[in-house]
């Protein structure tokens, strides 16, 4: 009896050890290195005549903008290179042609001298026209150069008065240059035309549109946008996919951007060694008004056109992006010199442009490629083929019991035989 108790105690101790087993954490992944490229931001302020309207908490729109700028300039992070551009600040006259060229750089993009910048802002007086399109083009030029992220913050109180150059088209052209520029817009008047235009500009570049009615909101939002620019972001590499796999560019692991027109397909090639896994994900952005049913298809095909695996994404309703991805683990080869397999990645989308919307340039496409070691394959549904649950215990107990009985009878029988002999 005592032996049995000891045995039970021992088993319990064993169980406790097992159940308290420590999960071994995987090797720590090293931190990423800091980004060296400094982000650039340009604040583009509408200084047209209408900015003198006094409907922002009792003060004029201009006063609200100035106060917001002062607060934002004080809070701008060190690493951000900030510039200020005005539109409609200088020309008083009625000549449309001259008025629509009126955009000037108030403070050049560079390391910020807060006092100088504030002095420059203080001089502004609401004056002229609203040439949003030309101002955006110039602002994009101001931000040229460097590897950091680029952001334009446009503050306006009215729609562009310089048609036919549609600022929305301008924004899309700027985005299509592939320089990773985002335009955020803030509207100071909640009228439908301004809203549509500013939100169209924002959508075209992956930016945001905010409708502002109070002073506080304005400085909070501009500050938030400048801070957002300071966050380090991976800058994608521009690539140019082709219509056939044979002529497609060969990609290594990384983040890429491209443009894909409606109804067209893009091919890219990736080399995958035996024992490696290809991971690819693709996002196609809706940077203009599109019909509300859409999809994206990413296929991994061999050079001979056989499909290996595919990823599909579909959706409906308002969206910024539709995305999908795939994995392709290539089995280990016995031959050490086995060549890498060329996998063709085919991207197609089923977006359709809403009526009256230009179809060029193509939709922005973002492709992530990662080639990592292949997973250890699964030989059983359960982890290491281990069992679990009461049925398992029951079956094992029953088997053990039957085996014990058989063994006991066998040895008794053998004893009996031995005795009779």
């Amino acid at each position: 009896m005592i032996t049995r108790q000891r045995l039970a105690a021992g088993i319990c101790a064993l169980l406790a050890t097992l159940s308290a087993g420590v999960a071994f954490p995987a090797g720590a992944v090293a931190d990423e290195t800091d980004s060296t490229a400094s982000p650039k931001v340009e604040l583009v302020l509408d200084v047209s005549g209408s900015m003198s309207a006094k409907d922002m908490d009792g003060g004029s729109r201009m006063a609200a903008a100035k106060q917001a700028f002062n607060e934002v300039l004080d809070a701008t992070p060190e690493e951000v290179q900030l510039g200020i551009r005005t539109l409609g600040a200088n020309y008083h006259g009625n000549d449309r042609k001259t008025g629509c060229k009126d955009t000037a750089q108030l403070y050049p993009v560079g390391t910020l001298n807060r006092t100088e910048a504030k002095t420059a802002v203080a001089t502004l007086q609401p004056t002229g026209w609203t040439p949003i399109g030309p101002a955006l083009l110039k602002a994009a030029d101001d931000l040229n150069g460097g590897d950091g992220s680029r952001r334009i913050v446009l503050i306006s109180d009215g729609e562009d008065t310089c048609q036919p150059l549609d600022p929305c088209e301008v924004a899309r052209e700027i985005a299509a240059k592939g320089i990773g520029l985002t335009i955020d817009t803030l509207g100071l008047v909640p009228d439908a035309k301004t809203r549509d235009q500013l939100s169209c500009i924002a959508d075209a570049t992956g930016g945001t549109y905010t409708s502002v009615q109070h002073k506080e909101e304005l400085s909070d939002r501009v500050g938030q946008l400048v801070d957002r620019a300071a966050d380090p972001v991976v800058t994608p590499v521009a690539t140019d996919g082709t219509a056939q796999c044979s002529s497609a560019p060969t990609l290594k692991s990384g983040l890429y951007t491209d443009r894909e027109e409606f109804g067209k397909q893009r091919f890219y090639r990736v080399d995958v060694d035996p024992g490696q896994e290809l991971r690819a994900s693709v996002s196609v952005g809706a940077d203009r008004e599109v019909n509300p049913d859409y999809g994206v298809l990413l296929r991994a095909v061999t050079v001979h056109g056989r499909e290996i695996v595919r990823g599909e994404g579909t959706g409906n309703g308002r969206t910024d992006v539709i995305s999908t991805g795939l994995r392709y683990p290539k089995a280990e080869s016995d031959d050490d010199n086995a060549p890498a397999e060329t996998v063709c990645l085919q991207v197609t989308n089923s977006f359709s442009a809403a009526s009256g919307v230009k179809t060029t340039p193509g939709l922005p496409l973002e492709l992530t490629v990662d080639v990592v070691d292949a997973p250890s394959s699964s030989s059983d549904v359960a982890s290491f083929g281990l069992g679990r649950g009461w049925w398992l215990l029951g079956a094992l107990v029953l088997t053990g019991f039957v085996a014990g009985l058989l063994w006991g009878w066998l040895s008794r029988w053998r004893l009996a035989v031995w005795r009779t002999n």
Partner: protein
Amino acid sequence: MRITRVLSTALLMAGLAAAPAVADSSPSASASASDGSSAPTQAGTSFRTATELDQGQQGTASGSTGDYLYWSFAADAGQRPTVKATVKLPDTHAGETWQLDVYDGLRRRQACQYGAATRTAAQGTASLDLACTLRTVRAWSEQWANDPLPGTYYVRLTVVDLQSSDLGQPVSTELRVDSKDIGGSAAVDGSLAEPLTPGIAVKSSSDEDSSSTTSAALSSIEPDGGWSSGWWSDRWVWTAIGGVLAALAGIGGYALTRGSGRPRRVPPPGM
């Protein structure tokens, strides 16, 4: 005597059989950082700029109606994450529909098992609650499946249907991710060489030659205590207990056939 032995053996077995249940309920190593001190107060606007959020943290973000707000979190094998979002709407607004989408590290949309991921706020409603419970994250799946795998997950919160007059109105949002530890019943064989984290190939290659300076990583988030190696599960306990019980049952069965003491027909030695 014989009866008592059999009885005690049976009792011992019953006691042991209850042990796995105890082992099963042992506390799991899931994330529980809920101090909220360093919780992010803004959200990203794309997959690339998604704000990283630890499980158990309450992320907040203010934005405008129409913004696409992105967060990312890490989920490990055996976890079943639940994403909960609260949207505080402006004082006056027309009816608008908000949606919570969860994507995995390959930007594949993940299905919600439970929870209202899309809801419509009637005119003038002050706030809206959205939730999405994912399927259990498995350590391995076939390449053709889109089962959740360990790695980065993206959450996108946005309004999908609205009156254009509501565009750009200020909203504030809260997001929280918690997960339930499913344990050994979800322990599958096989494992990924690297978690499903975008940009991991770039990151590990820049580790090797540290001279090259890469910019920010696409995703650098990982669970508390790092990614699990995937070999441990409570299946080991169940199987080990099964083995011990089988051995005991074997001994018990053997003992039954032997009877107590010497066989009756065998004369004592020296007679």
